[in-house]
């Protein structure tokens, strides 16, 4: 009601203006100007930090870049160099392994979400606990897991030695074979909650009466799971997988903190290699080439995931 006082004085000018603004053309034009003014800041940010970089990456990848002088066109030389670059193949392999690990996480998350989707008491607390690690600062998560994997006092070595699986402590993050699985496990710990949330939303969209009708028809729990839950959950499952793909292309923080891509590039991902090429080796143009390859791969895989899911699936993060 208090708003009325401020509205009051406005009435007269707007009614007075009405005859002059009555022509539909000027009103529409005013609105059009308003629309584009309102869109401008966001579009400017996206142009500057999404679209322009995309194009610039392409340009850089066919150039010999120099900060001071004139950059010269060298064709596809960087791409040919890429084919001979062992580290690139290593990083590509690791990125694909990263993606391949996503289904394991999704299966675990599916089991958890089935458990917390029941009417069990305290389900919200369980959900919060599972989800808690997702919004954490990944740098800190990496440090936590370094500590868990520590050779002398890490929890993993302690547990494995207590059970009697190993005699001598393992240096997980310093080992060529174990470093990548170790990083994958840490990543799983962090992303599990996000998978769970996606699947939970999918589960809650399944109409309950399907279960009731099928129960009347005598369908067992197992039959219900494979005939109702899984098919109807397909979009959510693929969405989770797309998120997994995205994560494998973007988890720079975890690898950087835990292993720096080492030992001898055994945990190098494309994204960490791009960073190293550009900002440690100062090979801006080569890093751009890597980015182009990474981006093409990412788009192809996400597109495939989208097609398979048969639905609209997008990125989880910004």
């Amino acid at each position, binding site marked *: 009601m208090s708003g009325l006082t401020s509205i009051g004085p406005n009435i007269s000018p707007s009614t007075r203006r009405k005859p002059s603004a009555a022509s539909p053309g000027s009103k529409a034009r005013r609105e059009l100007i308003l629309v*584009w003014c309102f869109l401008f800041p966001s579009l400017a940010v996206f142009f500057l930090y999404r679209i322009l*970089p995309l194009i610039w990456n392409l340009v850089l990848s066919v150039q010999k870049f120099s900060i001071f002088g004139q950059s010269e066109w060298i064709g596809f030389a960087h791409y040919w160099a890429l084919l001979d670059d062992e580290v690139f193949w290593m990083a590509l392999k690791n990125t694909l392994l990263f993606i391949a690990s996503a289904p394991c996480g999704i299966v675990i998350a599916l089991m958890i979400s089935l458990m917390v989707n029941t009417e069990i008491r305290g389900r919200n607390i369980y959900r919060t606990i599972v989800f808690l690690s997702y919004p954490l600062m990944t740098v800190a998560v990496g440090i936590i897991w370094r500590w868990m994997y520590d050779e002398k006092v890490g929890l993993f070595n302690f547990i494995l030695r207590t059970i009697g699986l190993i005699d001598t402590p393992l240096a997980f993050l310093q080992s060529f074979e174990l470093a990548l699985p170790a990083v994958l496990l840490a990543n799983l710990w962090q992303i599990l909650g996000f998978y769970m949330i996606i699947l939970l939303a999918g589960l809650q969209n399944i109409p309950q009466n399907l279960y009731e009708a099928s129960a009347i028809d005598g369908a067992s729990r197992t039959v219900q799971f494979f005939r109702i839950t899984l098919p109807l959950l397909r979009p959510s499952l693929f969405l989770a997988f797309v998120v997994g793909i995205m994560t494998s292309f973007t988890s720079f*923080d975890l690898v950087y903190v835990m292993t720096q891509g080492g030992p001898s590039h055994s945990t190098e991902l494309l994204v960490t290699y791009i960073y190293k090429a*550009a900002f440690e080796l100062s090979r801006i143009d080569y890093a751009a080439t890597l980015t182009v390859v990474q981006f093409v791969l990412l788009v192809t895989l996400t597109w495939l995931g989208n097609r398979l899911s048969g639905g609209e699936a*997008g990125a989880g993060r910004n």
Partner: protein
Amino acid sequence: MSQNMQPPSVKSLLSNGAKKRTSSHALPTWLLHISLLLISFCLLLPFYWVLKTSFTGENIFIYPPSLIPQDPHPFFYIDTWYYIPFARYLFNSVVVSVLAIVANVVFNAMAAYALTKHFKGKSLVITLLLSCLMIPFQTTIVPAYLITGKIGLLNSYLGVALPTFSTIVCIFIYKASFDAIPTSLIEAARIDGLSELQVILKIMIPLSSSAVASNVILSFIWSWNNFLWPLIVIRDPLMQTLPLGLSRFLSYHENTTGALYAFCTMVLVPGIIIFLMAQKEFIRGLTSGATKG
């Protein structure tokens, strides 16, 4: 999130079936509880391990490591506070986050309001936004660095925050919320003489408070945790944000374990508290982003 999709009336209609369902779990309730407790235990263990170390330090010459903290003390926290410019890092992080949050709320709401109108090129803008969603920030770092250098924003708060000034996911969250407001309400307000801006500020935004909350918490968490971009843009140690400070501390003082984990805890706690306070908004924002985006 936790709400059942079933409207209550339907549920009561089918109360027979519903009862049957609860009594015929695939697993008995106690087994369910045990497995969930076990999972929770495994997931919480890393937190405990770090918290314990931050209060006791770790003597690496003693085996086995003790599971229960032995004479805990707060000195590592005090050490951390004095050894590193923690307050400065915190200040930097807060400035960057506040910049990002304010810009996000204003710009996203503006863009979403524009998208509720009908105009030529609207579908093009929407397509453009949706395709930009497919470009993760990590694939833009090299040119983004060059661009930021050209604008002269390297090593500045604005340079760190600028790429996060608008978020596509949040624009669509606002748009969904704005679209849900009945047009009759807006027209009534117009007839009462409210200007365009007043309509937005007095009607659209107050009725979309949950969208605003989602946007605030999402952009806070994202910019608070952001590591790669500040790592590229910031050179001056005094301009570093918390994640940068943490990573720097790790590389310089690898062996002072207690202090490192105290630092870690101090960095994690604000994020956890804010997340727990706004969990619902955060998850809502995330799921609508993940499904509608």
